[in-house]
């Protein structure tokens, strides 16, 4: 495109500035985890690994991590089933009401989390009389995770079309055989990307979680509990640094196994 050199320079400089804006806070978090000062005065007076050692032995953080992982895996697995079913039905079958169904699937992620949180809190706790637990968190998370699987699978189904499925049927494959050998391999990347996104969404969720967790602590809830406690600050800094660095992993997986469309 023939945009003027001046504009190109402006857009390039703007891009650099935005990237600095995006990364400086993250670098600061990582740097802070080595800051020897307990109050994290800036610039750091010295660097230490003490906080990393303390964090490694913090049982609260490990328990919360475990709970988060359980919720994330369960919610992602349920969302994979539900989202894939919905994507197939809407993309491959002449069902009625595609627009309102898509809308319903999208709603839980579009509307503010606090609304969903209070609604589910009231339903689970006050109306059904359940004890809030990991189970209620899983139910809540699955609800807003369905949409990411749905979007990924639907996009893939739209792109691949039905030619191969028809060819498989014409060659005498049963419905199951076609799914096992043709449809599933086509979908694998989209399912991986969708499942990963759902897990990440669940892993990071705090608002809906706070209203549905009761006394259960997921990692975000545990961090939030300890955020304002001065003597926990060093451990929080390390956990924050770890989460920042670990964020690279899904990006790497998505680059390697996902497709460009996702």
């Amino acid at each position: 495109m023939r945009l003027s050199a001046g504009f190109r320079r402006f857009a390039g400089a703007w891009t650099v500035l935005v990237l600095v804006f995006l990364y400086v806070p993250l670098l600061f978090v990582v740097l802070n985890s080595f800051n020897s000062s307990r109050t994290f005065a800036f610039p750091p007076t010295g660097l230490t690994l003490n906080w990393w050692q303390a964090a490694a032995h913090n049982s609260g953080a490990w328990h919360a991590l475990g709970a988060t992982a359980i919720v994330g895996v369960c919610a992602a697995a349920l969302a994979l089933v539900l989202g894939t079913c919905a994507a197939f039905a809407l993309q491959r079958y002449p069902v009625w009401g595609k627009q309102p169904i898509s809308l319903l699937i999208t709603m839980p992620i579009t509307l503010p989390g606090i609304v969903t949180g209070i609604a589910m809190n009231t339903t689970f706790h006050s109306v059904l009389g359940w004890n809030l637990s990991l189970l209620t968190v899983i139910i809540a998370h699955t609800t807003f995770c369905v949409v990411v699987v749905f979007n990924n699978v639907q996009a893939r189904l739209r792109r691949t079309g039905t030619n191969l499925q028809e060819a498989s049927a014409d060659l005498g494959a049963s419905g199951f055989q076609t799914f096992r050998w043709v449809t599933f391999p086509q979908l694998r990347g989209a399912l991986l990307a969708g499942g990963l996104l759902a897990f990440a969404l669940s892993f990071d969720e705090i608002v809906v979680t706070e209203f549905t967790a009761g006394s259960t602590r997921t990692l975000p809830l545990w961090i939030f509990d300890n955020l304002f406690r001065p003597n926990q600050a060093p451990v929080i800094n390390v956990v924050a640094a770890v989460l920042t660095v670990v964020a690279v992993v899904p990006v790497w997986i998505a680059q390697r196994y996902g497709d460009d469309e996702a």
Partner: protein
Amino acid sequence: MTSLVPTENLRAGRRSNRRPALRGYLLLLPPMAWLVIAYLGSMAVLLISAFWSVDSFTGQVVHVTTTGNFGAVFHDSLFRTVTLRTVGVALGVTVIDAVLAVPLALFMAKVAGPTMRIALMVAVTTPLWASYLVKAYAWRGLLAPNGPLDWITGGHSIGYGLPATVITLSYLWLPYMILPVYAAFTRVPHSMWEASADLGATSATTLRRIAAPLAFPGIAAGSIFTFSLSLGDYIAVQIVGGKTQLLGNVIYGQLVTANDQPLAAALSFVPLVVVLVYLFALRATGSLEQESR
């Protein structure tokens, strides 16, 4: 003519195509059951509970129908002030993110080469995967007394408060704006941009007549996230907002601190209605249809 495939197998294979609508509905059954029961059911409970009241002696929720909660939401000037402030913050965050995102997305889509484009894509997506709390916490640290911004500005950091909330929310949701705007720019072939230049348009004209209308559906799609997420947020506000209250904090306070679930339920219809109005307004501009194509 002899068939290469036994006919009974052919029929078995084709059987899957029979009564396709029925199979579609069977597939829809689990996800729809889940969403209708767990989500719409909860939303219905929320609406109904907004008409309940709290016994002033016992503090227990009593199932006596009253419109008093909605009355309070409409008439209490505190709620009105907070609502206006929250909508202002959400719009401000959306505008800031759009301003930050558009030149960057244009650079990614139309100036950067293929390798640079992938690198930028990774660079923009990675912070999206970083934890929400960590990002808000990072701003708490940056803005802290004796923190880096205080150090750089010689003690004149803006500190915690409303501007800090706007900056933090803009930071949190920025990737949600960049990605759809970038997608909107890439969807249009290079030839269209070339044609604009061939017809004698200057860069400024091309940007105004070609780029701006293209960016708009992307901004609209991104703004659904920046606007809606800002409207319901109360965590970042607690972390960097100082004494500032947004709708989310007020709702949370009514539910948890004041223990008035029905009023919290009535109040939570404010962000719900604002988001729905916003979505309908976007729909009226036609930009959402273009985006979902």
